């Protein structure tokens, strides 16, 4: 069956640390004259190969700064590979940071529309799913409250609820359940489980080995931007835990 939804071949992502730093005109000219501008480069991920089939669930493990989030941004299309190729077929709902698409000044209701549209949902679809989103986030009473007054748990519930109601082909979740309480985490895992049964592809980053093995069939272990191991989730997580 030829149902590859994500195909990453020899992908390398390069950040330019010197440029990423905020620079004024004076420093810029100075650096330019001294040829220091393109000096410090940093390979966030190096030569990664990954092939994900439709309906698979992949977990990504590794220490902080090992390149997990960069890899997810590559799949989302936010970053482009410096070398190699990335092809993704199907719609992607990224959940890279809690409240990433929120405007803190706006109310919960306004943010549902803002965030949904950012995720690429048509307005009619947001209208249709509105109640479902609110129900799942358990925020009926707080819809007209500005999001800046929400607790981080409330924000995470709303974020997760919108992203999962977007019904994208590929759901990308980066360490998003860390702030919710146990009960909500279970609810979220159940929902992801259900989406997987419905044919959604899941890419999931977590520092909790339990969550990875529960949700994911496959896993990849990253270290300093390199792939240490990929394969069955249980094996990879076990090897990673041992190495720690």
């Amino acid at each position, binding site marked *: 069956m030829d149902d590859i939804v994500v195909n990453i071949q020899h992908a390398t992502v390069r950040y330019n640390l010197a440029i990423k730093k905020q620079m004024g005109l004076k420093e810029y000219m100075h650096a330019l004259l001294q040829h220091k501008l393109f000096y410090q480069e940093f390979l966030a991920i190096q030569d990664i190969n990954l092939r994900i089939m439709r309906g698979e669930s992949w977990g990504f493990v590794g220490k902080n700064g090992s390149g997990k989030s960069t890899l997810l941004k590559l799949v989302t299309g936010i970053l*482009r590979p410096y070398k190699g190729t990335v092809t993704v077929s199907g719609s992607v709902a990224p959940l890279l940071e809690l409240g*990433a698409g929120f405007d803190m000044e*706006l109310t919960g209701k306004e943010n549902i529309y*803002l965030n949904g549209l950012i995720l690429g949902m048509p307005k009619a679809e947001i209208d249709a799913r509105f109640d479902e989103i609110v129900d799942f986030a358990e925020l009926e009473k707080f819809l007209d409250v500005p999001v800046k007054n929400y607790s981080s748990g409330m924000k995470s519930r709303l974020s997760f609820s919108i992203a999962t109601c977007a019904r994208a082909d590929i759901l990308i979740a980066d360490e998003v359940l860390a702030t919710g309480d146990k009960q909500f985490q279970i609810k979220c895992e159940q929902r992801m489980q259900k989406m997987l049964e419905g044919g959604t592809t899941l890419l999931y980053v977590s520092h909790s080995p339990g969550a990875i093995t529960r949700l994911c069939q496959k896993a990849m272990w990253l270290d300093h931007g390199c792939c240490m191991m990929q394969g069955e989730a249980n094996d990879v997580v076990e090897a990673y835990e041992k190495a720690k």
Partner: protein
Amino acid sequence: MSRRIRLGWDNFLKYIPLLKVLVERDLKKKYRTSVLGYIWCVLNPLLVMLIMTLVFTYMFRNQIENFPVYVFIGRMMYTLLSGGPGTVMRSLVSNGGLMRKTRVPYYVFPLSSFFCVFVDFLFNLAAFAIVLIFTQAKITIHVVAFPIVILEAMLMTFGLSLLLSIAHVFIRDVGYIWGVFCTAWMYLSAIFYPLSSLPEMVQRLISFYNPLYWLIDQTRTIFLLNAWPRYGNVLKGFGVGGLIFILALLAYQSSKDDLILYV
């Protein structure tokens, strides 16, 4: 090539609802916390005009006929061309969080910010209408040429806005440079003095090379002289506006993959 343009266009249509929400957001945030809210959009230009009229009539004793309209036109165009890009310029950097964490075409941010500037301009027009009525200015058929002048102004404002927002991502100093530049620009655009009060050499330079002055001059010709704007000025306005607009599109096209690394 044409396929790419089609795809880009389809993508653009898909993001129109998002644009709408972003514009609403910016407008709401701007006025939600003030008591008078949107009334300020009309009140503010009127009050500034009033002060300028008082200052220049009683302190500097100018001889310009219908000075309120004269100064309002100058200020309205100046606010659009200097304040517009000044506001839009920051849209990419201030939405950096969204750019890094979600996948939306980056142009939606300058574009939505530009629409807010446009809405502000519409409020300015409403205030302008009030001034025209109060000063009993003569309105003639020549008013039909005014939308053409507005179109020129919008072309220039949008082009400048997009160019500056890209430049601002790479070099933040652009914000300060623009501020200083605009101060000079204001004094070189005959907003509150007659152009004829300047040395002839300077007069010629301004009327030849200052696009802002072309816009002001065309508008004044329509509303104060009750005549058609000069053909050459209209042509020059569209020429320069179109040029800036195309330059901005090219700059966006060639830099859009790098923006994310610098915001």
